[in-house]
């Protein structure tokens, strides 16, 4: 296994970018020849390496290599789309023909079409997203083994492993439309993860940890990832259910990010024009406590969700969605914006790099604020109704009394309504300790229903 990782394509990334731009041009040209009044196309390719090891031995070595193209044609306000993994000239013609056929059956929707040309990104800023990692298969295996070894050495109760994996991907994506916009950029993503099983003779518990970054040097140390996975598994041992009750609930920071994702969905234009959001009538009104701010920072250097333009080609921008507790804007792509009589906010594809300013309290102080209640460290299943805000999910974590963790808890649910949970957010911690694009600390919610025995 001495072959170099195919992402070692320091070869001419520039030449590949040009080839893909050419394919976008061909797609748009073919759409025009077929009589489309407007069109937009996206073309991408990526290569990668994924290595999985378990119990110190190699389990899988995967070489990935993906291509894709997508075309949307507009005949006036009628629309049709097609996509394929084949980038050959014949496939380009076929895809455009298929999209045009579809468009003969779709109906006029005045909002179907390209975003206004003046909203397009006029320059594509370099967001420092491209850091190819020319790691060899052997070195990738060594790092993954190091990660798992550290996990297994953390505690004698780590008795088994689901293994560790290292992945590295490098990709190029180009978007262009018949308004004359074309933009694209290379980006990379690398990750290291580990999942282990703890056993105390009375039952097994599994947990995992990971690190993910645009540049290999930003990954957490392999041994640290492994240790964190092991610690998370061991502390779950001996979990039990508790009696049904109503108590305050502290969401670990990683899970608080989930509450932000529900918020992002509830303010997305698609759910607003369809009237399928529990925040429908709340624009300009307080939905969270005074002092709470939610921003997106799409141009954050090396950000995992950074992008210079959205999937309509519209320039992205740093902006607040919740300011001092007040819902200040919807998150809009071009179509939803048109339906609502508003202008795109550059959010086709969602919010990027959500940021909530960290609070003052560390985890121990947050536990003291919680007092007696539930500290949630894992959630399971669906159970979130975006139309009503009703929330009911499987949970596990710790029972806390007077600010001190008592014992692990499992096989319980926590339930409330997201409107009430947001309104009754008591405090945010400074304990942002998870990888990913979102920044927030833990969230203390005043009261939820815990269902157990």
């Amino acid at each position, binding site marked *: 296994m001495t072959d170099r990782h195919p992402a070692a394509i320091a070869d001419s990334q520039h030449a590949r970018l040009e080839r893909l731009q050419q394919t976008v041009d061909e797609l748009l040209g073919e759409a025009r020849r077929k009589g489309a009044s407007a069109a937009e196309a996206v073309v991408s390719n990526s290569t990668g390496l994924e290595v999985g090891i378990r119990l110190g031995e*190699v389990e899988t070595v995967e070489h990935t290599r993906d291509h894709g193209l997508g075309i949307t044609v507009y005949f006036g306000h009628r629309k049709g789309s097609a*996509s394929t993994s084949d980038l050959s000239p014949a496939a380009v013609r076929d895809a455009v023909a298929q999209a045009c056929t579809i468009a003969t059956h*779709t109906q006029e929707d005045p909002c179907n079409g390209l975003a206004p040309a003046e909203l397009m990104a006029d320059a594509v800023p370099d967001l420092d997203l491209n850091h190819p990692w020319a790691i060899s298969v052997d070195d990738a295996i060594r790092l993954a083994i190091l990660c798992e070894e550290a996990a297994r050495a953390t505690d004698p109760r780590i008795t088994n492993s689901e293994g560790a994996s290292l992945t590295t991907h490098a990709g190029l994506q180009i978007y262009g439309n018949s308004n004359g916009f074309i933009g694209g950029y290379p980006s990379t993503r690398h990750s290291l993860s580990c999942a282990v099983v703890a056993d105390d003779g009375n039952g097994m518990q599994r947990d995992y940890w990971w690190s993910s970054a645009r540049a290999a040097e930003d990954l957490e140390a392999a041994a640290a990832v492994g240790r964190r996975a092991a610690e998370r598994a061991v502390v779950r041992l001996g979990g039990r259910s508790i009696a049904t009750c109503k108590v305050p609930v502290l969401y670990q920071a990683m899970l608080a990010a989930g509450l932000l994702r529900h918020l992002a969905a509830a303010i997305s234009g698609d759910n607003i024009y369809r009237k399928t959001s529990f925040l429908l009538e709340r624009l300009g009104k307080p939905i969270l406590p005074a002092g709470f701010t939610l921003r997106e920072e799409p141009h954050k250097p090396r950000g995992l969700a950074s992008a210079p333009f959205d999937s309509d080609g519209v320039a992205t921008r740093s902006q607040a969605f919740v300011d001092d507790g007040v819902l200040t804007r919807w998150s809009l792509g071009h179509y939803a914006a048109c339906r609502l009589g508003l202008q795109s906010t550059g959010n086709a594809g969602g919010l990027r790099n959500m940021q909530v300013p960290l609070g003052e309290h560390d985890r121990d102080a947050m536990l003291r604020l919680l007092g007696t209640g539930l500290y949630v460290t894992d959630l399971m299943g669906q159970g979130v109704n975006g139309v009503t805000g009703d929330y009911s999910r*499987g949970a596990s974590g710790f029972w806390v009394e007077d600010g001190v963790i008592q014992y692990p808890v499992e096989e319980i649910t926590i339930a409330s309504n997201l409107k009430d949970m947001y309104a009754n957010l008591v405090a945010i911690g400074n304990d942002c300790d998870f990888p990913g694009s979102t920044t927030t600390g833990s969230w203390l919610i005043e009261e939820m229903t815990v269902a157990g025995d």
Partner: protein
Amino acid sequence: MSDLLAIARSQVLAPVGLTDGDLDHLIGALHSPAIDAADVYFQHSRLQSWILEDGIIKDGGFNIEQGAGLRAISGEKTGFAYSDELAMQALGQAANAARAIARGGHAGRVQIGAQLPQLALYAPMNPIESLPDTEKVALLHRVDDEARKMDPRVTQVITSLVAVQDTMLVISDDGLMSADVRPLIRLSVSVVVEANGRRERASSGGGARLGLDYLLAEDRALGFAREAVRQALVNLEADDAPAGRMTVVLGPGWPGVLLHEAVGHGLEGDFNRKGTSAFAGRIGERVAAPGVTVVDDGTLEGRRGSLNVDDEGNPTQCTTLIEDGILVGYMQDRLNARLMGTSPTGNGRRESYAHLPMPRMTNTYMRAGTHDPEEIIASVERGLYAVNFGGGQVDITSGKFTFSASEAYLIEGGRIGRPVKGATLIGNGPDVLTRVSMIGNDLQLDTGVGTCGKEGQSVPVGVGQPTLRVDGLTVGGTHA
């Protein structure tokens, strides 16, 4: 069914000029004395979709995917590479990358010839061409009209129709070649209803490995529209759900997602080989109440989870997992079966050529019991009757699983009472089926909408069960 092979050759290999000699060469290139098993999986799939919203056909799409995945296995090690370019040069590179998993050894020669007898659970047809496009969009309009005319409180209807033809051809190092041509259709209806400032959404739908005429027959498509509206209107009246442990009666059909989560995943061969499942090493032990028999059956005609052969070329079968309450079997792919010294069960599945196969469910269901469903309801003094669900999730190591009800009622004094809001139910897989105290005589399979995710790979599956009484599941409402 050699015509499946003939169709697969003509759809996948002929257009790119690949010959049997090329296939011999590829599988030979993967093979060496240090390799225990190898295969090459070719796939060509075409998908067409239509979406109706606001009463008009708003969007449609067409997707073509093709490629090949090449795998070489040595002991517990798997080397894998894939290519969406079906040219010999690209495939040869992928073969070299995959076989690098085993050091040394010379390329072997494999002569492809034999093929296994195959099932014929569905016709090798292209459902995209089973109905003219004009009739597909007309069908969506009829579904929309039906939903809107049901009740003035219906404010929003979104309907989608998807048809797929997925053709696969797999060659393994033992010289076997298998192919399958898999049609798959699905209609989904989502409605929003509104009254007195309160809104609720519900959805319904169905599908099969059949042509689109299936949806026209027996009023099926319109039936899904009526069902979505009915569920949404029920939820418009729903009170807060109760919280705590109680007796739960599960309706027949889709609530079988219970089995999929509570026991299905835990009985997949990979987790048991690795000892990470709460069911590991428990063959022969009681894991369910007497009378509980659970099977995974990939051989049901036309069902969403059925396959003529799995993605490793093994015929699917009906595998008994739990028999009269005793754990009797796991679901296996080739790799895990070999390492556990047992036989594959036709459960080796993959999302696409770009993914590795692993043990996956097909159609998982519990066999019928003897109780009348009314008798089961009447036996419960106070509890929850849950008849429709969203999805679920399981932690196979701790055994804890959840599934979320989307239509449920209180049971009071042996009668179905007021509707309550959706709530998540949580339980422990290895013991939940020991709490089954009554099994209905009304086995139903779901309508053909299930998709299962595992390690990032999605595959279509089916579930089913009769009405069940479970004594003690935790219901996650807000009403403590």
